[in-house]
């Protein structure tokens, strides 16, 4: 019988000396999911992945993959897993095609079958025009695509992707994210770690938010957003407001905070209906002219902020991202 739960991590504890990297971590990943592990750098995502792949030992807990305990010699389980490492893991001395073929050959012995799989991986990652190039000649985005092609060429049932889009240009990032969705549609279960909330929000069917080695919340993005009290953020272009007028807005029911800078009013609301109409009604009453108005539902960053009291990425990273 085909198991429904593919990965089961229970009560996992991993220490690096005095540092508690994983703090009684519990995870359960079901077949067909794109499971997102979202957390800031150093939250324990990569450590969790390394433990899951038996690259790292752990102090306590258990890890089961495909219903079997995951050990360094769990070769049958490893055969069904594809790995896309955070750092690009390819041979610089081999061409794009040779790299994909080589890593595929670790799993698939039959040459004919392998040739077909390599072709598919090349098409899938859009590397057709770069097959004879050496990795050093590829851009950052193409290199990441090659990394992914090497990880997924053997068509694994479970794919672990550890921050596969770090330092990738937006075009390649979209290509990669679309590819991940396609892989999932083709039947692969995917574990995707990232500190880019937009990516996780875009592709993951279920998300766990991690910080300091712990899972803080798990659910679909809607479920996660529903967990918090923060609601939509309303932005209104005005001709300018006085401090008193902004203070009046702040006192409206359902408003958490209000701020007006250079004529743009930004209002953070609590969850609930009628926030937008209440705000616009108040602006009309106060004779404050306004132009464009838009409302943003809460993001995972808001969720993270509310749960941990800190932002998912620091401001500098956010600007770069």
């Amino acid at each position, binding site marked *: 019988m085909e198991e429904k739960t593919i990965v089961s991590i229970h009560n996992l504890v991993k220490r690096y000396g005095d540092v508690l990297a994983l703090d009684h971590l519990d995870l359960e990943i079901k077949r067909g999911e794109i499971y997102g592990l979202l957390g800031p750098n150093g939250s324990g995502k990569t450590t969790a992945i390394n433990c899951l792949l038996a*690259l790292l030992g752990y102090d306590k807990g258990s890890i089961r993959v495909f219903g079997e305990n995951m050990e360094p010699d769990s070769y*049958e389980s490893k055969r069904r897993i594809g790995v896309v490492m955070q750092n690009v*893991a390819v*041979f610089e*001395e*081999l061409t794009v095609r040779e790299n994909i073929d080589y890593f595929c*050959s670790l799993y698939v012995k039959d040459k004919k079958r392998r040739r077909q799989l390599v072709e598919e991986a090349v098409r899938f990652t859009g590397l057709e025009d770069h097959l004879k190039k050496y990795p050093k000649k590829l851009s950052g985005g193409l290199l990441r695509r090659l990394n992914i092609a090497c990880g997924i060429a053997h068509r694994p049932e479970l794919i672990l992707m550890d921050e596969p889009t770090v330092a990738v240009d937006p075009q390649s990032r979209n290509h990669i994210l679309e590819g991940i969705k396609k892989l999932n549609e083709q039947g692969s279960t995917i574990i995707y770690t990232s500190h880019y909330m937009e990516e996780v929000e875009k592709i993951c069917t279920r998300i766990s938010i991690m910080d300091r080695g712990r899972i803080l919340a798990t659910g679909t993005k809607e479920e996660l957003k529903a967990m918090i009290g923060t609601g939509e953020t309303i932005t209104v272009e005005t001709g300018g407001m006085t401090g008193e007028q902004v203070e009046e807005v702040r006192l409206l029911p359902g408003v958490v905070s209000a701020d007006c800078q250079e004529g743009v009013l930004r209002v953070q609301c609590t969850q609930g209906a009628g926030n937008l109409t209440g705000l616009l009604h108040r602006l009309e009453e106060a004779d404050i002219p306004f132009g464009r108005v838009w409302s943003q539902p809460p993001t995972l960053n808001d969720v993270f902020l509310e749960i941990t009291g800190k932002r998912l990425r620091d401001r500098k990273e956010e600007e770069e991202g």
Partner: protein
Amino acid sequence: MTVFRGFIKLALRQLHMLLLYVAVFVTIAVIVQLSLREEGTDTFEMTSLPVAVEDRDGGAAAEGLKEYLGQIHRVTEWEGDLTGLQEKMFYRDIYYLVRIPENFEAACLAGQEKLEVTKIPGTTSAYYVDSQISAWLREMKAMLAAGYGTQEACALVLQAQSGAGSVRMLDESGYGGEPAPHAFLFQYLPYMVLSILCYGAAFIMIAFRREEVRRRLLVSPVPRLRQNLGLMAGYLVLGAVVWVISLILPVTLYRGDFLSDGNLPYYMANVTALVLVSLSIAYVVSMCVKRAETVNGVVNVVTLGMCFLCGVFVSMDVMAAGVKRAAAFLPVYWYEAVNGILSEQASLTASQRTEVLQGLGLQLLFAAAIFGVGMAVSRYRETD
């Protein structure tokens, strides 16, 4: 098998480097061998010098002496002054002047007067001609004392001189006393073997030991043991290729000479030991070098250092005793020691065979010890 295939694929990427080393090596070895062949010493010939004679006697004995000297040297009559003689001697146009005095037979051969000569002080040529003239005088005195007439005595001495024993050079090497022609190729071989194996292995292992690739291979379904065996098999194939090249080169360049050499099995054994030693050194080097940029530096220090110290480029004969003592702690020294015996002896005596076997054994011990060090470094690196 997958890791082995990867090793071979990466090794093929270094093919240009291998060919370059082989080409440079063959060129140098052949040039050195040809230049030494031109200076061959397989025949003996007495040295002939420009000797001048000032004959103030003109008698039969004087003629006899001139004829005797003329058989060995390039004799010219001298009638010039002292300044002219000094100039000629300074420029080595004349090495020796013999002044035959008047009444030579009565004065000199009777032992009453010494033969007057002018020679370049402190030179071997002076002693050389001195000894020849002394010998002639001795023999002439003996002949005259025996009752022969002057002309008859001169003829007999000349005859005795022309019937001098023939000189045959001792030919232990089987190549006219010279080292075997392929000996030079084998002398320089360590540089090629060490360089190819160290560079090849270092570049390949850097690729396999790159942290990301190593981790990627660890999460693959290929067991760790099989991965290591694959790498070992790759090393051995690389060594085998270099071994074959090392033996094909002398066969190609010297054909019959090399194939008919009685020491052929020992040469093959010596090259095998050298390849094993070089493989072990290459293994250690590849374990120690982390980045491709540092390979050149490390490999150059190891190969050139070892080759200079162990008599690959400079003959051990000209090295100081201290250097030789230090070199004995390096495996290539023993390779060269064995090669030296093989190149100079066409057939080995029992003691020479023992020396050769000891040299081979020591190389194998070095190979095992160095490989052990490599394993220890590898283990340390993995747990690091």
